[in-house]
């Protein structure tokens, strides 16, 4: 009996199923889309690309293209991503079907820009300098995320004396619902050309922004997803960008 008791025929790891993961963000106006398809489990923070799957991207209002595996991920060439269109991703792999759907948000249009050029005094305590407004989308379905990039290859740091700059990244990590934003001088870190990109996203994607992976008591939750049969998120965005020049 003790011999029988010592037999461990089943190991924990052997019983774990393997799950594929899909990540893809379709951007309106693009004719090339990248789709990552890989499997877990693997090493922590690692992933194993699946190269022998059959992926197909379908525009529900017409048009379908197969994806090809290039440089570790799948790419769809020649299928334009159009604002307001719905897309379906179909995957056949290892005898199983996976699918996901998304609708690319309506097009974003710049409505008002108070100024495309602004001067920043390094001794400032923080003052509004530029207001950007774009067309309003239904807030029950869409929200906005912002990206501020400096375009100078050798940027010149603003020597703030009273406060610190570069506060934009901390302030706008999460999506917003208002269709207007006022930029303060302290949002910037550098002089020179900048680009402010405004993305309209499906509100379902907000879960990924608000996902907190390291709660104090280890309250881990599996990440949200919208792929049937697999993990990951398949979504579409529309974008409008405005170039700004920051001067001393």
């Amino acid at each position: 009996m003790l011999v029988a008791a010592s037999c461990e025929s089943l190991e924990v790891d052997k019983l774990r199923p393997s799950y594929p993961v899909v990540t893809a963000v379709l951007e309106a106006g693009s004719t090339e889309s990248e789709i990552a398809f890989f499997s877990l489990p693997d090493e922590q923070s690692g992933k194993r690309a699946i190269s022998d799957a059959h992926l197909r991207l379908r525009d529900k209002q017409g048009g379908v293209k197969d994806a090809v595996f290039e440089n570790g991920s799948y790419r769809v060439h020649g299928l334009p991503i159009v604002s307001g269109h719905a897309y379906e991703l179909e995957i056949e792999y290892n005898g199983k079907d996976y699918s996901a759907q998304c609708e690319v948000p309506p097009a974003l249009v710049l409505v008002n820009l108070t100024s495309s050029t602004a001067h920043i005094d390094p001794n400032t305590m923080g003052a509004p300098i530029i207001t950007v407004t774009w067309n309003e989308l239904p807030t029950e379905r869409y929200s906005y995320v912002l990206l501020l990039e400096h375009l100078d290859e050798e940027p010149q740091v603003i020597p703030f004396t009273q406060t610190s700059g570069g506060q934009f990244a901390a302030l706008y990590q999460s999506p917003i619902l208002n269709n207007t934003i006022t930029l303060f001088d302290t949002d910037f870190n550098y002089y020179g050309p900048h680009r402010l990109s405004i993305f309209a996203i499906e509100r379902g994607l907000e879960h990924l922004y608000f996902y907190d992976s390291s709660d104090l008591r280890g309250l881990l939750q599996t990440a949200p997803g919208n792929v049937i049969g697999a993990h990951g998120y398949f979504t579409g965005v529309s974008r409008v960008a405005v170039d700004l020049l920051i001067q001393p």
Partner: protein
Amino acid sequence: MRGLRYILLWLLVAGACALKAQVYSGDYQAKSLAFVLEDFTKRYSLSFAYDSQALQAYQGSWYFEQITFEEVMELLLTPFDLQWKRVGDTYVIYPHEEELALPASASPGRPFVLYGEVRDRKTNELLPFATLLSNDGNLHSTTNEHGKFALHSAMLHDTIHIFYVGYEPQIFVPDTTRSYTVIHLLQRHASLPTITVESQRVLLVSSGMDASEQVINPNKITGIIGSGEADIYRAVQLLPGVNGTMENNNGLFVRGSNSDQTLITFDGFTLYQQDHFFGAFSAVNSTAVKNMRLHKGATNARFGGRVAGVLEIVGNEGASNKARAQVDIGPLALAALIETPLDRDGKASAVIAGRRSFTNTVFSPTYRSLFNTVYNAAINVNPDKDLKTFGGEGDPEFYFQDLNVKLTYRASHRDAVNLSFFASKDKLYMQYADTGSFEVINLRDVNYTDESVKRNVGAGMRWTHQWRDHLESLVSVGFSRFTGDFFSVDTILEIGFQDKEVLFYAENAILNDLDARAEVAYLRDKHRVLGGVQYNGLSTFNKLNYLGTSIPIREQEGGILSFYLQEEWNPHSKWNLRPGLRINRYDINAAWYAEPRLAVGYQLVPYRLRLKATTGMVHQYIHRLREHSLYFNTPDYWQFSGNDALPVLRSLQYTLGVIVNVKSWSMDVEGFLKRNTGLFINKGIYGRSDAERYRAELYTGNGTTYGLDALVQYNRKDHHAWVGYSLTYSYNAFDTETGRRRIREPYVRQHEAKVYHQWQPGRWSFSWMWVIGSGKAYTPFLGIYDYPLPNGIVRKLPVFGDLNSALLRPYHRMDVSAAYHFNFRMTYGKLQFSVFNVYNHENVRDIQYVAVRTTTANNEYRVVERKVNMLPFLPSINLQLQF
């Protein structure tokens, strides 16, 4: 056949002649009667059964020469008002029975019913759930929870056999000139001296004559002390169909159902605090329990409200002839029992049983091991190392206690009133620190303070009255209040900024349960009709305070009004039928629910082979959505069903089984099928610490569970052994975001086997048990992937497998126990040594996951898996003294 009869007759006559021919001599001066009988056993190879403790007290001097056995017995026993009876090859010595002067009820033309009661010969205590069987094995009756029985006329033409777990079987011939009979049974006592009781079948587990019903006496199972305290649930978990592998989760998981689907009643009120020590053992003091009856499923119209079954616990009524006391000392707690008659007539008795742990003052090795195991499973500290809770800056303060009080008054044999009270409490106060030594970068030091209190107070009153010979009634009222209070303070010091933050969190949960019942039983000829009305009023109250924000109180009230009617009918000597109907009115959704029930028994071969079958429907209206958790600092959380998020659970059940008895062997095999609608399972595998916890994060669905339970028992002389096996297939499908999917329940083990053996040679008793079960389902962690969001943020996202999609390794463990029984003057004692998990097998209860930050960036972390183990090798020693 006829030849065999002649041979038997010849043997009997020859035996009688041989006995007659034997003469006996003896010279005993100032000796006890027990000494004389022991000496007789040695000299003449006779076999006696008697209460050695009582007979030690009878002292005398005897001298006799060349006299017969009958003359010896008269000489020895008459002065002490004792008598003897031969059962098999054993001479049973017992006190002289008092004749009850009751009017005769048998009159021509009137169906006769013989009422009576079964009592313990030593303590005069009534014995619930005893089985009475006609000589041909076809007809049966059972004593109720008050130890009373009723035999209709069809059973009165023959001798009646009485079986009771842990007692010598008895045979009696019904006396139809008396309408009330008192039957005394002799307890199978391990302190019997060297004399061997030769009875063939002293049962420890009795399979009821009805399907899915088993009676077990926890105080006769010597192997239930394993984790330091005698545990009545551990005795029940030895039965097939009851999960025996969920160590640290002490509810009863019956036939693939969750533990909140099993109703546990104690003298008429519902128990909600089912465990002490966060699941290590049951909250009910075993010394306060007389007997237990388990109904697996919907079989009896008297019961409803839980789909998995009912465990009826009957409290000890106490001796009605003389006062008795008992003390139990274990490595964790001290328990005491006092039982006493309250009057000279034996009409009133009282029992007080209390238990208090000394774990807040004495840290025994058993306690340290148990605490470390339980608490390490409950905290978020270094996932790679166990926390040493003792010997640090502050030792934990933990204690548990419980109290049982029961008063019984019997004005006559027609009346019985019980008042029963129960209170239990667990309290933990603990501080520990996480100084970040296990993280790659020590970002912050956290000091945790946890305090949790869990209480259950219950009280019940039951009054039974026999109005006429054919009519009796029961009125009972029970109330139970369960409270859980959790409070935690986390003081966080951010190393980089020397910034201190204090987080506190408090949660209170209360559940009230009022149960009132009135029922009438009418017995006539071959029919026993039972009808009743029951009201079960429930209310829940939850309050949460998180970071200073008080979440609105959540309070719910609901009630179930039930009417039930049931008939026990013997249409033929071989057939038993029990049709029943229970109708419930649930006031939360103002709906009616009908629950038809039917139990059928057929005696294929008298005594040897009995077939049984049941079908029935049952509904459940309140559910425990979440179990108490030290890890998440949360109490049990109960919620009413009957709404869109949580439908009323309905279970349609079928069983088919057979009972086979061959000499010392008995086998009970039963197949079952349950079709459930309105099941639920928690969506997330992890809790939440904010107001979102009250949002019902559930999947609901339907399922089918089927399988079989088999119990093979061997009971002979001093050996009691059984093998239980359960096979369970459970297919539960839930409506998820991605469609209807099959999800495993974490408490279902496909295969589970239990082996138990108890051997009682003389003053010793030894037992061992072995349990093995298939792996438990859990949710695996698969890995982390990066998701580049449109605004340049890369989010690290963990991926867990489907809910409960992986299996842990099989569970198994062996417990052993040895006890020595002794008498010292008027004191009976038992010294017991037991070892839980004797070969120290690592049984994993669950897998926990902890996020460990690897850099100062918020989104840089790794997920560490942490095995939560069940109890390791755990020796303990217990001493019991009875006065």
